[in-house]
């Protein structure tokens, strides 16, 4: 039945929206839906062939109806594919904004230069989302990271990926959750300037105490 496969993709996308991690890319399903579109297109061409470009819908309503259904099915499949891929890129973009190293960029850490985290972090690896990407998605993440870095570069003093919570206190107490190597800030060790350690909190090394 036309559209069944597309429906599965949409269900996958819907499921992805509510998950914390990114489920594996459905290579087979994507290929099958794409194949369906190509087959439908061939059917349309075959149906139209005997008419030599002079087809009038009113003359043969059965053929006209088949053509319409095929057309709509193709467009629907396209939308399903777009929705599926867009849901995933959306999620990937969010991870990039949060500063996670989605694809292991060989030590090229997306981070705040003022804090030396001591070794590249790879939070996204923890839930295995890296292996769940398609090669195209890996490319996309890499390119999007570059794009974001370029845009951020226009606003170096603001730290665009910083916290979106309104700042309250200049200094905060933190608890260390994981070894992060040596960290140098201007003031003390556990009572630190919030702007200096935001990245470490986001990456799970430190916990903010209120």
């Amino acid at each position, binding site marked *: 039945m036309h559209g069944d496969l597309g429906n599965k993709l949409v269900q996958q996308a819907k499921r992805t929206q509510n998950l914390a991690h990114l489920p594996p890319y459905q290579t087979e399903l994507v290929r099958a839906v794409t194949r369906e579109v190509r087959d439908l297109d061939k059917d349309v061409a075959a149906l139209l062939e005997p008419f030599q470009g002079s087809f009038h819908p009113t003359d043969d309503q059965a053929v006209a109806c088949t053509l319409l259904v095929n057309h709509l099915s193709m*467009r629907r499949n*396209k939308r399903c*594919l777009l929705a599926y*891929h867009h849901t995933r890129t959306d999620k990937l973009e969010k991870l990039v904004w949060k500063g996670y190293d989605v694809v292991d960029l060989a030590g090229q850490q997306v981070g705040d230069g003022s804090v030396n985290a001591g070794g590249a972090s790879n939070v996204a690896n923890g839930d295995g989302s890296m292996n769940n990407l398609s090669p195209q998605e890996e*490319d996309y993440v890499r*390119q999007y990271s570059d794009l974001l870095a370029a845009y951020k570069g226009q606003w170096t003093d603001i730290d665009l990926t910083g916290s979106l919570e309104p700042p309250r206190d200049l200094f905060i107490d933190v608890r260390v959750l994981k070894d992060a190597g040596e960290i140098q800030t201007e003031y003390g060790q556990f009572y630190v300037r919030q*702007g200096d350690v935001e990245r470490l909190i986001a990456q799970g090394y430190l916990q903010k105490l209120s």
Partner: protein
Amino acid sequence: MDIDDILREVDPASQSIPAETRDLQALTRAWVAERSSPELLRWPADGLFERVNDRIKQQIERVEEMTGDMDPKTNFALIVIQTELERFKYLVRSYLRARIAKIDQHTLHYLSSPDMRARLSETEQAYATRHQALLHNHYLSSFLSAFPPALQNLNDSAGNISMIDTPDTDTAVFIRLLKDSLVEGRGTDGDGIMDGKNGDIIILRWSDAKPLVDSGRAEVI
């Protein structure tokens, strides 16, 4: 006294306040408006962000100079300056992020006409164009290139349904009138007209509020 009171007390056109303070007010207004309106608003053309950026730079330098000083008095001033600096940075960051979020959501819509493009800053235009190109490439390499050529576009409008998603301009917004003016609002069952007074707070559709906001007779809150 909160930020709204401060905003209401000062007329945006007033010249008696120092330029720095006026810029902060303009920034706060832009931030509030951008966050509450469903559509991307025009990027301030008067160089507001260049000025704000320069001042943030100056203050960062100042903080660095003062840090070496051990005098307790300087230390206190330092904390005040740094706190204010963090707030400034937050305003700019939050404003830019609100815009990027809108641009990302409806990229093709904002890139589709010169009129729309004019709302974006140059950097935002570059970002949006590149982002859209990346996405299209990603779709192409993932599945779209295997499609029949006629179906490879991302801006079809076959069957009267455009593929380009647009912001919902009928979303409700709150506005505050800055001048007495006639407010017209369209409703589902009937339209309404009211005589608005300066300071009135009204909830209505963004499509109805937009002319008032654009002409400076009201502001989004």
